């Protein structure tokens, strides 16, 4: 129909550009109270006593609750949704994660009490009157210190602060390959901790309706059904059918709004206690301390090459900082979303990865845009580039010669890696060739050589990153076998109205991704209706059948496919109705451009007429139910595997250490593309997030566990004047196992860009003797590296 592949302008934009978006904090319920949380100022402390007397007596205060109150009421702890057992086979240690800490706090920001008042102001004032008697304990902050002899222990029942360890791949083969390698490149570094910083701070409103014994939770979440399931089944023990969770417009998530947070439980439970709505909105300061953080790995990697530059073995050892508690999906991020990607695009015959997860007195760490895959890509792409620099090989050529040959997953089988996954389809060389052509590689190298020869202080660097990611999360049986405690299918209800207009109820949630447009394009194409005839409903457990939500670049591949499945059923039933009305055999009909036509004739009936007949079934096939509406659940057969080639060009000011990104070329292959404009936008945002990690962003704790970078005065978010304009393009290698042939585009940029930038800076400074740099490449760090090298 021509709407797939078109850059249709977004239908959701009208409300956002006119200020009519409806984010959670925009909702003002009558008779609402406002919550303020009392949070620990200490990273690690025992709680001797919590005195709420003064707070409870303060102006406008409606109620104050503590951890003891919640315990007495039987409120459970926050659950973890993924179990990663020890290498030994021992079960993962899963300490309690109280909604309000009652006996001990384990990170700065850990909530201790909640104050409800008539106004935000009164709640904030009264929260300061809660007196908590803390006994401050030594804190452990760095992942590498967590397992040290004598380190402070966070939990009595988790020895060595270690809830799990994990490995994947053939260790003996990898060790042997490295022992006999002609060259081994070794790096040891921190993949630093990041703070997600969706621009909308989290917000939650609980609204208990006593007359119906019914709860509504409005929350800024990427997956309202998951929140409902976790909260009702594991924390509050509420009947799930009596709880509605609504995620209206959400101002960015980037992973941080996947997880089930204490505040969601608190506003829901408190609303029941006081019989009034309870609203909590995070301040940015609270967001810094309590939104689950991302990354924070300490990694050592060894890559072996033979004399011809072929990779022979890759060994990776990582300590992953999980923070103070197991956040919802924390265990899978540094394991199954990380170790399984360490094959990269390469034919490396032996790969082994060993991961230890550790608790520290810091904010919990969980999935952040890319989640595990940026960490894996950084391991591979920094190391491959380092190997090229060390052995004097061209980094593009070294990659090319080790690439897995092209395979489409149809004629040629999927590629079985050394680390469990089977890639669906790929043509890695094509993406790299396209990127090299786009950037004008030979000319750039010539310019670089000229600048070096001229010694004019212009330090130009070219850096590569050729990445692969696993998206379209995920086949439920596979992830179930790997410890997931949830299925990862998606659902879609497609309701054809009597007039032929279409309402779609999707379990995916849009918080910037543009589903209301992309999904409408899919439906318009599938049913031959206009985009304006399609409405996409999401984010409400009351209207959407079920949903696993949006993360892991899964919405179109999984949620979109569920829509396609429902449309298939609609077309199948529609064909029966059409055949009846046309007095033709069903198998003689074909459906195209919104009509069923008797093949080879001009007899046809429009989709709208069939829809009307379905609801006014006066003349209807015998035995067929009226109505035209189907709900489907789609559980993917495999992950999808987007890939791409990114090239960054930087210029380093050696005098100040400032890195300027001069150009950035990204050639991504996300399979088929429904809306190129939206995909490009996703790539831009992802690249920027990755440049943020490479150059700017860093959660800094001091030794006592205080977050130094706890506001925008210290934590550097990339701004417009920090960035170049991006040059993007794509190759198309369709996914062979979903009907749309799509792979997912939400995380490519974040995954691909950090090593490209760092590699470019290393390339610029290699002649000066700089051999390694750790993210973020702050001016001081770059300047010091130059000083030390020269």
């Amino acid at each position, binding site marked *: 129909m021509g709407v797939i592949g078109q*850059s249709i*302008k*977004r239908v*959701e*934009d*009208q*409300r*956002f*550009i*006119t*200020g*009519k*978006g*409806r*984010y959670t*904090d*925009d909702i*003002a319920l009558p008779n609402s109270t406002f919550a303020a949380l009392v949070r620990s100022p200490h990273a690690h402390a025992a709680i001797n006593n919590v005195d709420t007397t003064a707070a409870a007596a303060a102006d406008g205060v409606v109620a104050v609750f503590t951890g003891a109150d919640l315990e007495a009421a039987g409120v459970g702890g926050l659950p973890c949704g993924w179990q990663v057992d020890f290498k030994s086979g021992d079960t993962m240690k899963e300490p309690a994660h109280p909604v309000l800490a009652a006996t001990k706090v384990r990170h700065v920001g850990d909530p201790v009490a909640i104050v409800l008042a008539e106004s*935000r*102001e009164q709640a904030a004032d009264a929260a300061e009157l809660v007196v908590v008697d803390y006994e401050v304990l030594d804190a452990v902050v760095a992942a590498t210190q967590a397992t040290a002899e004598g380190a402070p222990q966070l939990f009595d029942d988790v020895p060595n602060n270690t809830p799990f360890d994990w490995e994947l791949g053939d260790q003996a083969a990898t060790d042997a390959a490295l022992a006999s390698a002609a060259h081994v490149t070794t790096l040891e570094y921190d993949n630093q901790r990041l703070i997600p*910083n*969706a*621009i*909308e*701070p989290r917000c939650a409103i609980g609204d208990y309706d006593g007359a119906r014994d019914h709860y509504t939770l409005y929350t800024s979440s990427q997956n309202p059904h998951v929140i409902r399931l976790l909260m009702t089944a594991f924390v509050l023990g509420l009947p799930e059918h009596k709880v509605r969770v609504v995620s209206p*417009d*959400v*101002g*960015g998530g*980037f992973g941080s709004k996947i997880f089930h947070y204490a505040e969601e439980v608190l506003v829901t439970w408190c609303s029941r206690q006081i019989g009034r709505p309870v609203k909590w*909105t995070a*301040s*940015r*300061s609270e967001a810094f301390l309590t939104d689950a953080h991302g990354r924070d790995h300490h990694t050592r990697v060894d890559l072996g090459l033979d004399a011809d530059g072929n990779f022979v073995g890759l060994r990776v050892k990582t300590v992953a900082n999980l923070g103070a508690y197991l956040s919802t999906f924390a265990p899978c991020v540094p394991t199954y979303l990380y170790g399984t990607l360490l094959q990269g695009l390469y034919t490396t015959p032996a790969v082994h990865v060993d991961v230890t997860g550790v608790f520290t007195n810091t904010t919990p760490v969980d999935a952040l845009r890319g989640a595990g895959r940026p960490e894996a890509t950084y391991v591979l792409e920094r190391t491959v580039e380092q190997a090229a620099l060390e052995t004097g090989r061209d980094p593009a050529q070294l990659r090319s010669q080790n690439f897995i040959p092209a395979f489409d997953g149809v004629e040629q089988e999927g590629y079985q890696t050394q680390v469990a996954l089977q890639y669906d389809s790929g043509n890695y060389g094509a993406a790299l060739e396209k990127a090299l052509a786009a950037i004008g590689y030979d000319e750039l190298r010539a310019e670089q050589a000229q600048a070096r020869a001229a010694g004019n202080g212009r330090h130009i660097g070219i850096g590569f990153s050729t990445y692969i990611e696993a998206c379209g999360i995920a086949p439920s049986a596979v992830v179930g076998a790997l410890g997931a405690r949830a299925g990862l299918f998606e659902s879609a209800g497609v309701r054809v109205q009597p007039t032929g207009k279409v309402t779609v109820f999707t379990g995916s949630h849009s*918080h*910037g*991704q*543009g589903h209301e447009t992309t999904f409408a394009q899919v439906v318009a194409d599938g049913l031959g209706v206009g985009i304006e005839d399609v409405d996409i409903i999401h984010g409400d457990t009351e209207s959407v059948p079920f949903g696993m939500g949006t993360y892991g670049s899964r919405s179109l591949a999984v949620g979109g496919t569920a829509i396609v499945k429902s449309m298939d059923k609609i077309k199948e039933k529609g064909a029966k109705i059409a055949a009846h009305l046309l007095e033709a055999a069903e198998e003689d009909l074909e459906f195209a451009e919104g009509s069923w036509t008797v093949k080879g004739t001009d007899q046809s009936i429009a989709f709208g007429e069939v829809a009307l007949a379905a609801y006014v079934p006066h003349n209807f096939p015998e035995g067929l139910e009226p109505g035209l509406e189907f709900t489907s659940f789609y559980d993917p057969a495999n992950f999808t595997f987007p890939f791409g080639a990114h090239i960054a060009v930087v210029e380093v000011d050696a005098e100040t250490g400032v890195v300027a990104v001069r150009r950035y070329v990204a050639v991504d292959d996300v399979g088929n593309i429904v809306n190129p*404009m*939206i995909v*490009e*936008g996703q790539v*831009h*945002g*992802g*690249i*920027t*997030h990755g440049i943020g990690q490479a150059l700017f962003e860093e959660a800094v704790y001091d030794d006592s566990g205080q977050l130094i970078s706890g*506001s*925008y*005065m210290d934590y550097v*978010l*990339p*701004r*417009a*004047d920090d*960035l170049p*304009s*991006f040059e993007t393009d794509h190759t198309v290698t369709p996914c062979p196992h979903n009907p749309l042939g799509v792979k997912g585009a939400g995380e490519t*940029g974040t995954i691909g860009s950090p090593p490209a930038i760092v590699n470019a800076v290393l390339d610029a400074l290699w002649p000066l003797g700089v051999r390694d740099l750790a993210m973020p490449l702050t001016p001081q760090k770059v300047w010091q590296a130059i000083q030390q090298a020269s």
Partner: protein
Amino acid sequence: MSVAIKVTVNGQTHEHEVEPRQMLVSYLREELGLTGTHVGCDTSNCGACTAIVDGQAVKVCTMLAAQADGAEITTIEGLAANGTLHPLQEAFRETHGLQCGFCTPGMIMAAWQLLERNATPSDAEVRHALEGNFCRCTGYDNIIKAVQHAAESA
């Protein structure tokens, strides 16, 4: 104590008694129900709360409602005239200059100020003029295009 204020917001005059500590953004959002102006931080950095106060783009999270007494204020809700979108609003949609939409009102207001002072900015000038506005979704590239698109169409 409370302070009596009279403000004109999007052409409508309002009179209220406000607490001195009430910020203008909370007055706009909570008293007037104009929730298009957002709060993204508490340190005057992110720019999500930008509105036009007496012709100047202001971070209204850092201005008391009391300070606005007598002021003429335009929020994102008042930018379109008689149902016709402002060229900047059109341009943000046209160039995909927004994703989640949360930073968008503030971004548009900051861009409004730029174009009012410099009708034909260079890309670098646009980037510089938006240094007080954070966007986590778009990578800014399409926002720059939006502002240029609006400049060209004005």
